[in-house]
């Protein structure tokens, strides 16, 4: 088996080629070094920065998704959450400015975009927030895992991912619910339940099977 040497907080590990940083840490008994949640790339717990002694590009990533490479140096980079801002229906420019006063401090350095492990165009989206282009912002942040790296690296105290979810939640709660949730409780519902659930479990199962095929409940 091909092995590679990696470094975590000053300790050297012989890892197997093709495994992730988290898998390598587990095998080495060093699981506590990097905070881990889902190990599937969606919870944002295992943020790390990596560096190479040569000129291979380093940067930040999720330890559960990043494969080990020879000579890789890994530094845990846990990001603590901050208190959220309450979302509000029908968001507009004024509302987002008042919820996030630092929004316009963005100096377009692009750090947030470069650290995003989900490849979200974070900085572009911040500029869209300034212009209240919220539908596009909501789309940009669809895949946001709230790891917090974009906020962590921002020197201007802009809070991109917090604003992202604020926009998404605000849009989500805007407008009427598109269907009448109680429409299903039609006059016949009670009777239909009775028809469906009467008799022995075997009879119920048989009736359910025919319902699935015919779309009707047989007597």
């Amino acid at each position, binding site marked *: 088996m091909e092995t590679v040497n990696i470094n975590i907080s000053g300790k050297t590990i012989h890892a197997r080629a093709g495994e992730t940083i988290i898998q390598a840490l*587990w095998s080495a008994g060093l699981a506590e070094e990097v905070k881990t949640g889902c190990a*599937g*790339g969606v919870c944002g717990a295992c943020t790390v920065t990596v560096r190479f002694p040569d000129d291979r590009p380093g940067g930040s990533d999720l330890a559960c998704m990043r494969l080990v490479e020879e000579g890789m140096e890994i530094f845990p980079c846990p990001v603590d959450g901050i208190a959220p801002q309450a979302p509000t229906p029908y968001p507009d420019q004024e509302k987002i400015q008042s919820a996030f006063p630092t929004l316009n401090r963005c100096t377009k350095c692009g750090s947030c975009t470069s650290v995003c492990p989900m490849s979200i165009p974070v900085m572009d989206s911040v500029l869209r927030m300034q212009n209240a282009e919220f539908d596009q912002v909501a789309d940009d942040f669809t895949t946001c895992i709230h790891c917090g790296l974009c906020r962590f690296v921002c020197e201007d105290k802009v809070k991109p991912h917090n604003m992202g979810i604020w926009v998404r939640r605000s849009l989500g709660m805007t407008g009427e619910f*598109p269907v009448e949730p109680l429409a299903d409780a039609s006059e016949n519902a009670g009777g239909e339940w009775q028809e469906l659930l009467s008799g022995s479990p075997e009879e119920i199962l048989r009736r359910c099977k025919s319902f699935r095929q015919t779309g009707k409940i047989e007597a």
Partner: protein
Amino acid sequence: MMDWAKDSLQQVARTRDDRSEQVLPGLDDQASQELLKKFHPDYKGLERKINVGSNANSQKFPPELADLLEADSPLPESFEPKVDIETDVLIIGGGGAGVSAALALNDSGMKVHLATKLRLGDSNTVMAEGGIQSAITAEDSSRRHFADSYVGGHGNNDPDLLRYLCEQGPLSIRWLTELGCLFDKNEDGTFRVRAGGGTSIPRVLACRDYTGLEIMRVLKDAVLLTETHVLEDHAAMELLDDGEGQVTGAVLWHRIEKKLITVSARAVILATGGSGQLRIQKFPTSNHVGATGDGLVLAYRQGCQLLHTDSYQYHPSGASYPEALAGQLITESIRSAGAQVVNAHGDRFISEMSFRDVLAGAIIREVEEGRGVEIPNGRKGVWLDTPLVDMKLGEGTLKKQFPGLFHRFERYNIDPAKQPLLIYPTLHYQNGGIRIDIECRTDRKGLWAAGEVTGGLHGTNRLMGNSLLDITVFGRRAAQSVAEHLPERKPVTLSSLLKFRQQLKSLGGAKGTSPQLFPKASQMKFQLAEVPPAQETRGAENTKANETFEPPDPFGGRF
């Protein structure tokens, strides 16, 4: 790339046009049963009875779980509970069910603590991809939702729980929408619904292939705006009781400070989720790292009955290659959108929208009978022919609707729009669990349970999208019941544990300890703080190494 599969890939490409419109009927009852008996892991007969506790000598458990139920608590014999935190409601579990319960308790006037072993939201909920099921279209009804789920669960479902789930579906979707969840919509503003395996009509709502992430981040954001006291990195080690059958709190282990904390509560809601990390029969799992069945162990020591715990869900489409992704979920909705499942020869062998257990059984059959693909990592699999989606629905559809899929596979230079993926069943869901009534009450006063930790609702096979609905419906139902029946505060003792320990001793002692808390592979374990903490100096070796390892500038990687 993937030269070892070149021949098989050619066959898949060769048969693609011919089978793209091919209709495969579902298997009839008898054929399904035969397939399951022969190939599904649940039917291998590896389960065993245990000789301690309320299910002693009656029910069977997979050995991996049986070992934990028969194990001793890691609490030191000398430990005596002294109350550190006094609260009204203690919720254990920071996934969808626990957070839904906390949100529903927000205006109750009760003091609520939510303890989670990991961080808030690190859960199976956040990893759910395909969707949430609810009868919201005019052609559909909660009765039909019931029928599909009941047949899927082999009629082993608790009909009262299942009816409540189906009836509450649309209300839960509205609740989530009001909290700000953005579900995918059609051009006309109605919710887009897809078929799931075993749904007789399209009924699954989604947010791309990140439905669980969308729901969890909204629930998390919302609960952080409430008065709920969130205790992260607090693992539940044992439930406390008053010596007379009422659960009165819990002992938590603060992972960072490595100390035990005693909580006195008038009500405890267990929402600890499932047990995929037990890696039953050495299957890989799609579960998060905390899914080690802790809640089952805790409730069992209190005398709660467990139901259908010999039934697990092996999700048909777990990734089988590359190795780093082994076991991770490839959502069912990709099949719903048109991707076919084909063997090494490029042949389909079953309807892709069969119930999950049946499809998983069929995939295992293909592999065991030599029609699978051998992968250099030692695993085997069959193909999920993803390029069909764009062929059928237009170029770019797959990437637009399943960004998570691309995000994961593109790291390995695999483009799912151009090349099929290798899949094999992965341990996905604990179908059974703690027995509850329609109000989420367990067999013990003071103890409620909701979500994957419970049993009965899904019978012995769950349908896609029913677990995200489960957690929002029953998380809130548990909260409502707690508010209506909050017991008086009673003393905290370890009576149940003492009785359990005596029973273990009389049976010849226990092997090992539980709850397990973390995957065995992680080598993480329960450990109390060392005494004395302050005096010790760091090892010279590490100090030296650290000097040469200053953390890098986070901007260093900018491109």
